[in-house]
C-alpha cells in the first residue's frame, strides 16, 4: 500500500462521512427537537412513526417560521450547508463528461462495481441473518450484562475502520486467534480473499442494522407477542409470524443503512482484505488507487458511487415519508 500524505488521506474521508452520518444525523436532529425522543437519539432506525410525526409537526412549523432567523444562526448554518454541498458540486463540475462513457464501460470499473455490489449485499445478508436475532436478544431478553453487550455491539460503529481491520487480522488472520484453527482444521483462509471483504464489511456495517432493528423492536408493542402466545404460538412462532412482519420497515431501513455503509467501506477492507483487482478491490479502493495514476478515472468512479448513494437516500426518504405519515 503506497504511503499517502495526510492531506491526500482526507480526500477519501468525505465520502465515508456523508453516507454514514448524514441520514442518521438528520433524524437525530429531528429527535432532539422533540425532547421526549431521547430514546430515539441512541439509534438510527428508531420509531419511524415518531420521526414522521415530528416531520409533520412542531419541527416543520418551526422551520417555516424561520423567515426571521437571527444572523448568528443563519450565517454558520449557510456556511455549513455550503461546506457539505460544494465538494459534491465540484465533483460534478470536474467530471470528465466527454470521456465518461469510455471510463465507465472499462472492464476494471465494472469488475470493481460488481465486486462492491456483491460484497455489500453479501455483508448485508450476513448482518441480517445474525444481526436481527442479536437485536431481538438485546431488546426482548433480560440478561446480566445486557448494557455491556449493547456497548460492545455498538463499538464498531465508532471504531476507526482501520482499527477494525487490524483487529480482524488479529482474530481471523492466518496466525490470528481464531484464524489459525480455521486454517489448520478446515483450510479456510479469510484475509486477502473476497470472503474477507465480506467479513470486513459485515463487521463495520452490522452494528447499524442491530441498532436500527433493536430500536424498532423496543418501539414495537411486546403485547402482540403475548397475544400470539395466548393463541398457542411458541416464542419463535410469535417472532416469525407477528414480530418480524411488524418490524419489517425497521429491518428494511437498517438493511439499507448497513448496505450503504458496506458499499463505502474502505479502511477495514484494505487492511483485512488488501487491494487485489477482481478479488478484493472494491469501488472505494479503486477510486483511491485511480487517484494516484488517473484522476479523471477517480472522478468517474466517484460519480458512480455518488449516484448509488443518492439512489439509496432517495429510497430511504421515500420509505420514511410513507411509513412515518
Amino acid at each position: 500500500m503506497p504511503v499517502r500524505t495526510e492531506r491526500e488521506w482526507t480526500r477519501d474521508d468525505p465520502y465515508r462521512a456523508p453516507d454514514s452520518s448524514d441520514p442518521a444525523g438528520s433524524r437525530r436532529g429531528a429527535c432532539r427537537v422533540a425532547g421526549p425522543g431521547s430514546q430515539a437519539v441512541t439509534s438510527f432506525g428508531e420509531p419511524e412513526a415518531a420521526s414522521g410525526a415530528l416531520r409533520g409537526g412542531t419541527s416543520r412549523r418551526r422551520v417555516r417560521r424561520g423567515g426571521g432567523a437571527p444572523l448568528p444562526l443563519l450565517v454558520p448554518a449557510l456556511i455549513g450547508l455550503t461546506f457539505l454541498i460544494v465538494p459534491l458540486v465540484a465533483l460534478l463540475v470536474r467530471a470528465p463528461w466527454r470521456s465518461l462513457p469510455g471510463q465507465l464501460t472499462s472492464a476494471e470499473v465494472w469488475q470493481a462495481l460488481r465486486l462492491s455490489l456483491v460484497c455489500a449485499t453479501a455483508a448485508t445478508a450476513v448482518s441480517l441473518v445474525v444481526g436481527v436475532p442479536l437485536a431481538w436478544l438485546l431488546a426482548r431478553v433480560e440478561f446480566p450484562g445486557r448494557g455491556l453487550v449493547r456497548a460492545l455491539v455498538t463499538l464498531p460503529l465508532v471504531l476507526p475502520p482501520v482499527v477494525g481491520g487490524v483487529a480482524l487480522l488479529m482474530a481471523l488472520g492466518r496466525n490470528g486467534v481464531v484464524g489459525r484453527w480455521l486454517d489448520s482444521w478446515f483450510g479456510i483462509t479469510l484475509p486477502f480473499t473476497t470472503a474477507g471483504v465480506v467479513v470486513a464489511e459485515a463487521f463495520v456495517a452490522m452494528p447499524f442494522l442491530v441498532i436500527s432493528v433493536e430500536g424498532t423492536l423496543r418501539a414495537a408493542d411486546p403485547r402482540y407477542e403475548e397475544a400470539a402466545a395466548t393463541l398457542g404460538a411458541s416464542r419463535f412462532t410469535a417472532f416469525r409470524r407477528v414480530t418480524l412482519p411488524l418490524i419489517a420497515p425497521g429491518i428494511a431501513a437498517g438493511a439499507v443503512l448497513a448496505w450503504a455503509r458496506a458499499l463505502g467501506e474502505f479502511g477495514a477492507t484494505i487492511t483485512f482484505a488488501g487491494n487485489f483487482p477482481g478479488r478484493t478491490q472494491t469501488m472505494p479502493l479503486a477510486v483511491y488507487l485511480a487517484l494516484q495514476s488517473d484522476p479523471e478515472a477517480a472522478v468517474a468512479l466517484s460519480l458512480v458511487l455518488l449516484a448509488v448513494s443518492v439512489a439509496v437516500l432517495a429510497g430511504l426518504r421515500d420509505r420514511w415519508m410513507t411509513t412515518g405519515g
Partner: protein
Amino acid sequence: MDDRWTAARRKAAPAVRSEAFDAFDGFETVEAFDAFDAFDAFEEGLDARLVVARGAFRLDVSLRVAPGEVVALLGPNGAGKTTALRALAGLTALTGGRLRLDGVELDGMPPESRPVGVVFQDYLLFPHLSALDNVAFGPRCQGVTKAQARARAAEWLRRLGLAEHVGVKPRKLSGGQAQRVALARALATRPRLLLLDEPLAALDARTRLEVRAQLRRHLAEFEAVAVLVTHDPLDAMVLADRLVVVEDGRVVQEGDPSDIARHPRSDYIARLVGLNLYRGESDGHVVRLDSGPSITTTEVLSGPVFVAFPPSAVTLFRDRPTGASARNLWRCEVAGLETHRDQIRADLSGELPLAADLTTVAAAELDLHPGAEVWATVKATQTHAYPV
C-alpha cells in the same frame, strides 16, 4: 395444543374413564365438546387461588367458576384485576396458590399450552393480517392446516356477523367490529377458559350499548368458563352471572349482580351503585355506627351490620325541623354540589357524611352553597340494614 391438553386431561381423569375419553379423541365440533362436558362433570370449571406478590402489592384472589358461567372481576383501577387475568392466562407467574382448569393444574404451564383465550382491552389484532388470518392464527398454531384454519376462521367470523369483513385489515375495522374479531380470534382456539380484559373500554358510548348486548349473547352461548375484568359496574352487571368485587388485591364481595347492587359491602360499590353505606353494630332497630352517630332502621338485627340508603331518601332543612317524626336527624355542612342529571347532588360532611339528591328548585329555596349548614333526615322505612 389440543392434543397436549387432551393428554393432560386424560392423566388427571380416573383410569376407568380412559376408554370413554378415547372415544372423544377425534372431536371436531362444539357439540362433541358439550357431550364431553356433560359426561365429565367431576371437577369441571375453574378452581383457582391466585397469589401474585409484586413489591408492596399483593394479589390474593380465590375464584371458582363453573363451565357456562360468566364471572366479572369488578374493581377500581389498580385493584389487581388485570394482574389476576394475566395470571390466569400465564402471562404473569403465580407466586403462590393454585390454578386448576377442568381438573388440570395450569400453574407452571406456558401460556401457549394453556387452553385459554384472551380478548385484550385494545384487542391487539395483528395489524399486518386480515381479519380472517387473525382468527386463523390460533388454529394454525395448533397444527391445523392452512385451509382448515381459514375455514374455521371464516365460520367464526360468520357466526359473529362479520362475513363481509373477512379480508379487511384491522385498521379498517370499526371499534365494535374489531372487538368481535378479537372475540372470534379467542374463541377459534376452542378455549376452556375465556378471558376478557375491559372488553368495552375502548368503545365510544354509542357503540358500547350495542356491542354490550351482542357480547352478552355470545357469552351466553359460550359453553366453558368465562372471566371478564371491568371497572364499569354496568358492564359487569349486564355481562356477568356473578360478580367478584376486588379491591386492593383481595375479594371484598362476591355474589349475583342484583344482590351486590342492593347490599354493597364496600364504599367503592356503594358509590358505584349510588348508595350511602355505613357499617355499625345493630341492637334492635338502632344501628350504632363505628364513627359515632346512630341510624334507626325497620329491620331488627343484632351484631355487625351494613346500613344503606339512596341519596334520594335524604331530606334537607336549613333550620332544625320541629317535631320528632324524623329520628334520623343529623347536622351537616355542605362540602360540595354537583349537577346529577336533572337533579343536584349535595355532598355533605359533619355528623354523618352522606350524599343527598334534591331538585334544583329545592336547592335554590334552601340557598345551598358550600359551607352552608343544613339538617339532614332519612325515614327509617327508606333505610336498609343487612348483616355483614
